[in-house]
């Protein structure tokens, strides 16, 4: 494998890592938002829950920004085609996501119950809707997306908004939401005490149960679904456009990679292990362990999707031969090389100072400190 093909695979893997970090970290914050109204019955309980992620949500959210930036830099054609194709869904995602920072910063500025109640709903919507959309977007990759290209690579999307909300996509959306709720509840368990902790424990167990069922159901569904198979292309590591390949759809083709490399079955297995482990850990009250097992569940789920789709990134249902793969959607060799250099330096650095930030803010959030009016608590 030449340098260019290696870089393409590295960036495909890195994108996977970024998406996993996004799902784990942003998903956790969104999960807290989504379950806030349920686990926190009093204003003080809700403030405790918010302050548990308070020092971190801002940094975590950058995984989302970085995910967008990395797709743009490493797979520009994917960025261009997917984001414009999913226009209405992307808008819903953006609109709900831009409400979230305001929900955190502004909610506790004013004491009026109506004000806080309104922002709690905002946090609920801006937690639940984006996770549903993330999941649904992934679900749609398996179904194929109705788009095609003109000779100069202008892309046209010919589907409707409702077409993106098909049953399989919704299943994937709810799976993502349940994993997010599970992680959010585990994080609340990490920092909370008393009734809040008990309710969060209940959420972990319920959400883990739902996730196990949906992940299994999704697997069976994909088994019967028509998948995409690349039967002719210029090949990896060669500059190319999506107009130079041929692709066919074959029932069950999404499992081809698992057939060729049986070791890959460990990936979905890790997903199940993570979900079951998180359930057990929550029951035993070991929420920190549960959190890491929850992260493993995410890695398993996203890894499974990636392993099944490889090398496809955005299959086209209009003309399967115009599907985007990592070979035809990636940036040039120079850009990938530069970006790999930056990622090699900065991703470990990010992980280091993020861990430091969590370490500094470790421990339980004290309800007493919040009521005493520490000015900067949410």
């Amino acid at each position, binding site marked *: 494998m030449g340098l260019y093909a290696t870089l393409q695979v590295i960036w495909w893997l890195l994108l996977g890592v970024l998406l996993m970090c996004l799902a784990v970290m942003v998903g956790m914050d969104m999960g807290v938002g989504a379950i806030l109204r349920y686990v926190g019955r009093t204003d003080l309980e809700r403030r405790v829950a918010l302050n548990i992620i308070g*020092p*971190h949500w*801002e*940094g975590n*959210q*950058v995984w989302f*920004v*970085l995910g*967008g*930036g990395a*797709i*743009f*830099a*490493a797979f*520009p*054609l994917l*960025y*261009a*085609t997917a*984001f*414009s194709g999913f226009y*209405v869904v*992307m*808008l819903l995602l*953006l*609109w709900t996501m*831009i*409400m*979230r*920072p*305001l929900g955190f*910063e*502004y909610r506790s*500025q*004013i004491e009026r119950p109506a004000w806080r109640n309104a922002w709690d709903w905002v946090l609920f919507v801006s937690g639940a809707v984006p996770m549903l959309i993330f999941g649904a977007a992934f679900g749609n990759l398996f179904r194929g997306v109705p788009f095609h290209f003109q*000779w*100069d*690579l*202008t*892309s046209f999307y010919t589907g409707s908004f409702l077409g993106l909300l098909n049953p399989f996509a919704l299943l994937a959306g709810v799976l993502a939401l349940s994993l997010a709720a599970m992680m959010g509840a585990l994080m609340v368990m990490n920092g909370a005490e008393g009734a809040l902790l008990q309710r969060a424990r209940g959420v972990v167990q319920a959400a883990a149960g739902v996730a196990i069922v949906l992940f299994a159901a999704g697997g069976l569904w994909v088994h019967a679904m028509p998948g995409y198979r690349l039967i002719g292309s210029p090949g990896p590591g060669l*500059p190319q*456009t999506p107009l130079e390949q041929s692709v066919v759809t074959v029932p069950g083709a999404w499992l081809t990679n698992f057939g060729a490399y049986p070791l890959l079955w460990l990936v979905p297995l890790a997903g199940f292990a993570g979900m079951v482990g998180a359930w057990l850990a929550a029951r035993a009250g070991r929420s920190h362990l549960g959190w890491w097992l929850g992260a493993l569940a995410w890695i398993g789920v996203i890894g499974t999707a990636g392993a099944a789709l490889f090398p496809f990134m955005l299959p086209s249902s209009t003309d399967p031969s115009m599907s985007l793969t990592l070979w035809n959607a990636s*940036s*040039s060799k*120079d*850009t990938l090389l*530069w*970006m790999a250099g*930056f990622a090699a330096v*900065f*991703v470990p650095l*990010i992980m280091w*100072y*993020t861990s430091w*930030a969590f370490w*500094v*803010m470790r421990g339980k959030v004290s309800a007493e400190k919040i009521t005493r009016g520490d*000015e*900067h*608590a949410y």
Partner: protein
Amino acid sequence: MINGTVVDLSRVQFAATALYHFLFVPLTLGLAFLLAAMETVYVTTGKPIYKQMAQFWGKLFMINFALGVATGLTMEFQFGTNWSFYSGFIGDIFGAPLAIEGLMAFFMESTFVGLMVFGWERLSKGQHLAVTWLVAFAANLSALWILVANSFMQDPAGATFDPFTMRMQLTSFRKLIFSPDAQSKFVHTSIAGYVTAAVFVTGVSAFYLLRKRHIPLAKRSLRMAVLFGVLATIGVITLGDALGFVAGRVQPTKLAAMEGLWKSESAPMPFNLIAFPSQREQKDYDAVQVPDLLSLLVTHSLGGTVLGVDALERRAQRRIEQGIPAVQALHVLARDPTNAAALAQFDAHRRDLGYGFLLQRYAPNLSQATAAQVRAAARDTIPFVAAVFWSFRVMVGLGLLMLAFFVLAALYSLRDVVQNKRWFLRAAVWMIPVPFLANECGWLVAELGRQPWTVFDVLPTWMSASTHSVAYMVFSLIGFLGLYSIFIVIELYLLVRAIRHGPAEPGGSGAPQGGHAPLAGGAVPAAAYGNKAEG
């Protein structure tokens, strides 16, 4: 086929969301360093008032920061959602700085901003100071990468078009980040942020001095902001000059529009102080001119000349004619990448490919393009002169106003008499919107002056947008306008509320000090506490 209405609506949406985002960003860039300055004094002298200052301004910082981040999310994704062809066409270069911004800067800023707010009790003094400095540095580093990306649109350095992948590809990362446009634009914009923050802090402090509340805090904040501001304003004007110099070289059409320069003249050229440019007649009405000044300003010599619209249109016409064979060869190569004749033809004309694209708007079939269509396309290369001309003058005028304001403020503050100059304090409160307006005008000059290109000389705007329906665009535009209007109302309400409430005083939070101070909100008429000096 491409729908002109969709392109226009996409432009309106981008401009609206970018201008809105840019209301919040400059304040973040500057206020972060002012916070660092205040905390530095706190850590070195140990005086608690500086901690109180850092915390109070930090609270205002966070209210502003939240909306900056929120609206920044829109920008990160809008290239893909609304400018799909553009993103595919230059993503190979343009995406890289955006991704590096996230990796190197925005991550650091956002992670440490959480510690800055929540970490006062958990971190040592020195650690917290380091965190504040990192936030300030990272915020500006963020701006650096965004402006490197923006500069590529103004001066596409370090890239070349590849006819086989149908896109621009990176050739030199070094040229990309060290292009003169990137350098001067970053410094100009970052320092404009310093000025914005300085005016903001000065204005709010003046408000407290007028009300005789929080006087020690207000005097110190004002002193620090004013010194910061006077130097920053000098810097912003210097860099504005450098940027104009660069524009003269790489974007002559922008420069001609900024100066309302329809006819090329011989040196030394006069400067239009005031004029009313007419795009249709290509002349300025009621021009008030300063002799020789233009040559001096944009070429830094009395003997220098710049091209007027007439010469630029002639030049564009030649390039359009040269661009036709480039686009035609590209069509052939798209069907048959091995065609050597087409490749040779393309290579001979590749420099003018963008101009060929530009003509396609007027002549979809290039082989039958008429002379009238070529002239129309050449006319199209001139941006909307009146808008660029006036945005530029408003920006420069406000910049000079702020310089005068800060010089006077520095005089008063250094003599420690500013608290007695009530007229000046009132003026300082009214100055608060000025830098924001100047920033928006600066954005307009840079981006309206770039038209009709998204990437200057390379990719015309009319080709760049996504192929959405008008209905989609109306839907998204209404959504953004609605949401953003609600946001700005909430933000201003919270900011004004936090300012009126004031910093937490050690003995009872936010209450006015002393017996003679009025209730917040001005229950006592201003005359009641007269013009006496304090203490």
